[in-house]
């Protein structure tokens, strides 16, 4: 049947008053849990699952989808204003977004995040409706070796995008890679770097590390400066709304973020964070103002925020077409489908078209609701920054602690938060970048597992990495990204010296 007709019928389902109510409850809850660090959409959906036994399938799935989209939205608010990423997918947002907020540009940062999320959500949901079968066949072509090549490309491009000093950036990255080794190794079941402590067996939680590094580390840094701290935060400077220049710099970043985020979200082993990393690296590379990166470049907020919402829609591609959950939330939504005796997969589109198209249509509705809900609130949110510094940072510390405790009620987790907070403080004092630590923790284990899987399948033959066209191309791009800057530097002596000076910092 015609896709348009089906989508139209889906809209009729989604626009029923009761389903609109479920969507509204979903997006509100989702935004709330997205704001809280540690408590993510996955936990919320899981906790709501038993409550929805009594609801009809369409209504509860629409609510879950609302939570999912809302969570992706809410995470950006705390990243930008408080430097406390609520979800791992909004870590990158904190980099530029918080710098903007401190310069009184919190309003435009929140606005570009909200509108970017809306644009990305809209395009990606339409892509889900029209391209799902095609996208999924491409995603399935990715096996362990292709994923490994993708991770290599991510490492090269992303680490180049952070900071000016390669030495310092790599040091941070390797701290993150080492932290990524902690815990039970998936391939052999053996514990690594756990020092016989059972709480370390599951490895280090990304959100704990991110919240500690960003929020706790910064709080300590500000407190240690005391009265010597340079300037007070300026809550609002200039317009609360985006200027014409902000729009001009944002719209391309939104579209690029969408194009990057959607397919990566659809990949079974992609994940929303990866898309935000790539988007950040691309924006920095293409920006006409690369010098602003690290100081509050609006593209660095617009791109990654669009990417994480697009990947949220991307995640639904393999879920609906293959029954394949590629994120924690999607896994729990799958359990939600099964609770009604529905098996997502190739047959779902034909056996339950109203439900599938109702869900897709309600994503469009939820997306619209979110922007209506969020844009007017920006003025209110920004006022958070008018709170006097000691109270503001005291509040951030409490907020970070509560979020961590809420996600995992254990004393050990809290101790980790503090220890990593101290580490974040130390890195700040000695001018090491923070983000590569978190990037290492996320990408390291993925790259390692994929490489080992690829080599296990090939029985140890390394050539297998180059015989697949996709991985060969990705590795070639990575090599170019690594070598090209070196070649360019070598072309002029003066520039070489400048580069060396920047490197040794």
């Amino acid at each position, binding site marked *: 049947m015609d896709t348009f007709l089906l989508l139209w019928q889906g809209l009729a389902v989604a626009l029923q008053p009761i389903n609109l109510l479920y969507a509204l409850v979903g997006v509100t809850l989702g935004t709330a849990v997205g704001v809280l660090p540690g408590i993510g959409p*996955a*936990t919320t959906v*899981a*906790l709501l*699952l*038993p409550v929805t*036994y009594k609801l009809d399938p369409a209504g509860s799935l629409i609510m879950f989808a609302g939570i999912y989209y809302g969570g992706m939205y809410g995470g950006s608010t705390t990243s930008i204003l408080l430097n406390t990423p609520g979800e791992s997918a909004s870590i990158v947002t904190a980099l530029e977004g918080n710098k903007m907020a401190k310069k009184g540009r919190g309003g435009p940062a929140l606005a570009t995040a909200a509108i970017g999320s809306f644009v990305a959500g809209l395009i990606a949901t339409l892509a889900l409706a029209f391209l799902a079968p095609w996208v999924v066949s491409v*995603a*399935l*072509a*990715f*096996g*362990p070796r292709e994923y490994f090549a993708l991770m290599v490309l991510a490492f090269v491009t992303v680490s180049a995008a952070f900071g000016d000093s390669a030495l310092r950036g790599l040091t941070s990255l390797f701290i993150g890679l080492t932290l990524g080794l902690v815990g*039970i*190794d*998936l*391939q*052999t*079941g*053996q*514990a690594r770097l756990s020092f016989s402590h*059972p*709480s370390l*067996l*599951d490895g280090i939680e990304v959100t704990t590390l991110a919240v500690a590094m960003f929020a706790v580390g910064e709080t300590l840094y500000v407190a240690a400066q005391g009265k010597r701290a340079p300037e007070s935060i300026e809550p609002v400077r200039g317009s609360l709304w985006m200027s014409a220049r902000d729009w001009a710099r944002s719209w391309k970043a939104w579209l690029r973020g969408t194009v990057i985020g959607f397919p990566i979200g659809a990949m*079974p*082993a992609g994940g929303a964070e990866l898309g935000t990393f790539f988007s950040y690296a691309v924006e920095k590379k293409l920006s006409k103002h690369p010098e602003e990166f690290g100081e509050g470049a609006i593209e660095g907020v617009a791109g990654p925020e669009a990417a994480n919402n697009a990947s949220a829609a991307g995640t639904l591609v*393999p879920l609906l077409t*293959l*029954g*394949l*959950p*590629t*994120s*924690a939330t*999607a*896994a*729990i939504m799958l*359990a939600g489908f*099964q*609770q*009604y*005796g529905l*098996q*997502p*997969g*190739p*047959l*779902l589109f034909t056996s339950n078209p109203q439900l599938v198209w109702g869900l897709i249509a309600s994503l469009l509705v939820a997306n619209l609701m979110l922007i209506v809900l969020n844009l007017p609130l920006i003025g209110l949110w920004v006022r958070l920054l008018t709170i006097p510094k000691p109270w503001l940072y005291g509040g951030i510390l409490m907020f970070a602690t509560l979020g961590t405790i809420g996600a*995992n009620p254990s004393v050990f987790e809290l101790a980790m938060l503090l220890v990593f907070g101290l580490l974040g403080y130390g890195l700040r004092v000695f001018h090491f970048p923070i983000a590569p630590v978190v990037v290492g923790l996320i990408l390291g284990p993925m790259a390692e*597992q994929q490489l080992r*899987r690829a080599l*296990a*399948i090939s*029985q140890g033959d390394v050539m297998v990495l180059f015989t697949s066209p996709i991985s060969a191309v990705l590795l070639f791009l990575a090599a170019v990204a690594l070598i090209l800057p070196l070649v360019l530097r070598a072309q002029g002596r003066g520039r070489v010296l400048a580069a060396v000076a920047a490197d040794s910092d």
Partner: protein
Amino acid sequence: MKHLLATAFLAGALALPAGVMAADYSIMAPAAPGGGWDQTARAMQEALTAEGISGNVQVTNVPGAGGTIGLAQFAQEAKGDPSRLIVGGYVMVGAILTNKAPVTLDAVTPIARLTGEYEVIVVPAASDIKTLADLVAKLKADPGSVSWAGGSAGGTDHITAGLFAKTAGVDPKAVNYVAFSGGGEALAAVLGSQVTVGISGYGEFQSQVEAGALRVIGVSAPEKVAIIDGPTFKEGGVDLVVQNWRGVWAGPDLSAEQVAAITADIEKMVNSETWKKTLETKGWNNTWLAGDAFKAQLATEIEATTAILKDIGLVE
């Protein structure tokens, strides 16, 4: 005044039976929300309250390390408390061994085995492996050439692959097992023909089998399973039965009466309509086994699992 007393008495009389009969329970799922143990705990919560067996049931999640973190915490906190229960199963047996967990299932009181799921071996529809005999022949010729995709190392899927090889006369250590984290990554690898075979619970592969993208070549059940279109391991010439079972335990230091009361409540739950409906929608088998029979079964399984994990090389 008289009226008031009568009303108070009446209210008391009505409230009393409920208060005496319905015990409160707090069930720990030693895993993150959404997984098998969490679903079991929440299904129990639903059935116990819907059937009026218990007035108030709480579910708590303590995730980590194949359930061993939750188990250690439970053994300490639930000592002598008849209202505390923990869900666990076959995966925990393996995890305790591979993690060298300090607190084992000896530290808690077994109540009953509740549910089970059989393992299936699947191949992509286009695979040249058509039968279990084909798979065994390929394994015997070159064990490394068969890559198996399943869940984490030392889990039920890995153990089943090891047992399959051993029963078929192939060295389990030579099994080329590729562990994928949960959430369908293994399914994606089989669908994309990245690996030779996939091994997991039928639920993971069901929709793709029904759509004709994957083919079941073997089921770890003792006899043919109605909903699964494929032969048992035994029919395919490999005499092996494996079931990924889940069960429930209570805390240590309980009196015989307390254990009997909990067992009676759980038995009532298992025989209820609500529970039967849950098993049906989730595709779980009823594997009810309680008391000494469960204890004896548990001891046998721990022994067998230790042996195969040693054979695979995960445990020394």
